[in-house]
């Protein structure tokens, strides 16, 4: 009986929370709303330590926080969300921790495409961006299945950076751009058409097309939790003109208020950002 009452109370608070959020978002939407927010989800292990949990539970709580933040972003009207789930550098961690994270990721990726998941509720298309060959087979296959299963969704986009670093992404984009140009030149030479040197110079668009993150526009805001102010090899090229926000809260404790603050900051800087987009 008590449990039933507790569930009812929780439901009531959630509903109230939802109504309050809707009200706040409707006010925020009077101004410009970011079309792409990226998150560096830092602080899971410190949270686990703080709460006397095992490391793995810090990451699990972090995952719940991620689901909440996704919900808030999509309710606000932000179409693109990118998250830094696992860096190539993170493979340097202890084998036990890497294994535990991989297992958690596989579990959560499979959960993403279930019927009642947030992905289907909000019509989210999911991408996994990075050097997926570095992942173990089960995780890679789960990622590919999730991408396939959500390919028809079109209301919003979730990009999960996994086995990713920005330097690796840029190098890979450079390699592909160079290969493409060399192939073009080879074809022209074989056909005897010759080419105008100037036409075949690589430009910014060529590089951007070959980035893993070409599926989304550049982020408007990058939020890194736990107070560290660094990008840690995340979206370096894409972050050229975006706002960086680094609240000291640990990732599992992030709330809608941090999002509201970030959006207000975005609105304050909006005219600058638009000017830079035109110049870039």
């Amino acid at each position, binding site marked *: 009986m008590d449990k039933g009452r507790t569930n009812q109370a929780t439901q009531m608070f959630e509903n109230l929370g939802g109504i309050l959020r809707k009200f706040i978002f409707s006010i925020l939407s009077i101004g410009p709303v970011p079309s792409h927010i990226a998150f560096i989800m830092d602080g899971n292990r410190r949270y686990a330590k703080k709460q006397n949990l095992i490391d793995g539970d810090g990451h699990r709580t972090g995952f719940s926080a991620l689901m909440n933040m996704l919900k808030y972003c999509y309710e606000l009207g932000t179409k693109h969300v990118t998250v830094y789930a696992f860096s190539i550098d993170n493979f340097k961690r202890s084998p036990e921790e890497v294994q535990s994270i991989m297992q958690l990721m596989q579990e959560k990726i499979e959960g993403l495409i279930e019927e009642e998941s947030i992905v289907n509720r909000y019509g989210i298309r999911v991408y996994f961006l990075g050097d997926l060959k570095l992942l173990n087979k089960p995780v890679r296959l789960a990622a590919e299945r999730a991408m396939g299963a959500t390919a028809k969704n079109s209301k919003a986009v979730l990009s999960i950076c996994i086995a990713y670093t920005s330097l690796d992404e840029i190098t890979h984009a450079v390699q592909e751009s160079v290969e493409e140009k060399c192939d073009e*030149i080879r074809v022209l030479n074989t056909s005897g058409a010759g080419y105008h040197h100037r036409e075949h110079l690589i430009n910014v668009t060529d590089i951007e097309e070959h980035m893993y993150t070409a599926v989304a526009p550049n982020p408007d805001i990058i939020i890194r939790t736990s107070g560290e102010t660094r990008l840690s090899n995340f979206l370096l090229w894409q972050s050229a003109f975006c706002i960086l926000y680094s609240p000291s809260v640990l990732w599992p404790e992030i709330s809608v208020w941090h999002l509201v603050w970030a959006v207000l900051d975005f609105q304050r800087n909006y005219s600058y950002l638009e000017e830079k987009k035109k*110049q870039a």
Partner: protein
Amino acid sequence: MSKLLGFKLVIPEDHVVWPSWVVLNTLVAAELVNLSQQVELPAGLRRELMPKHVGLIPDGHRRWAHQRGLSVQQGHSTIGRRLTELTRLCDKWGVQVLTVYGVSTETLTRPKEELDFLVSIFEEWVKSNMEEWARQNIRFSVIGNKSPLPRSIEQVLSEAEVALKANSGLHLMVALGYGGRYEILQACKSVSSKVKDGLIQLQDIDESLFEQELQTKCTKFPSPDLLIRTGGECRVSNFMLWQLAYSEFYFSKTFFPNYGEADFIEALSSFQQRQRRYGGRS
């Protein structure tokens, strides 16, 4: 030894044995200079935790000028003085590379009058400091695309780069006509050229090869350990995108015309307390 004393020791090559008192005095003098240099580090800062490379985005001139009812040009006029002070502090406190974001590729699109004035500030700054930099064993380099800049500054910059090339102290780099994306694009074009000409294979292209194509290859430490941006805005504005992968950012609310020694100490102190994990475990 030369760096400590500030001049080269000339030891004659013949077999004269120097009087022991000369040798002793020289060693004592060197040690005193060394000690005085070490003592000059402000309280709370540790020499072994000084960032090797400091990047600086000097911002806030317009707002500073606006607050005082001054013109933007008057705001920009303060740049030289503040940069000179910061260069001296970096040199004194053992920073090995200081990169200053002078004029960005985006600034190049500003009205000609404003751009010319800004460029003239840097030209004057370089001209008036060359002698001191020569004395202080400071090396000077420019990164960026100098060709859109007025010819007069191109000449001043080249002279400074050549004259100070052999110095081995603080490496002062100024980014003029610079954009992080532009730099990466130029490196990409260079790599493409080399592949086309058969100098390198496509599969040779990796992070370290690519890094050698960037303009920052001219320095021993191409990546800033600490990036300071004054003026309160929290963004990198297309500065050293590749090189900032693991840099610690410090965003100061102080407008650059007001940014002095105390502010710099605050940034360094914050940096020295940070735990840099590079993605691994702490």
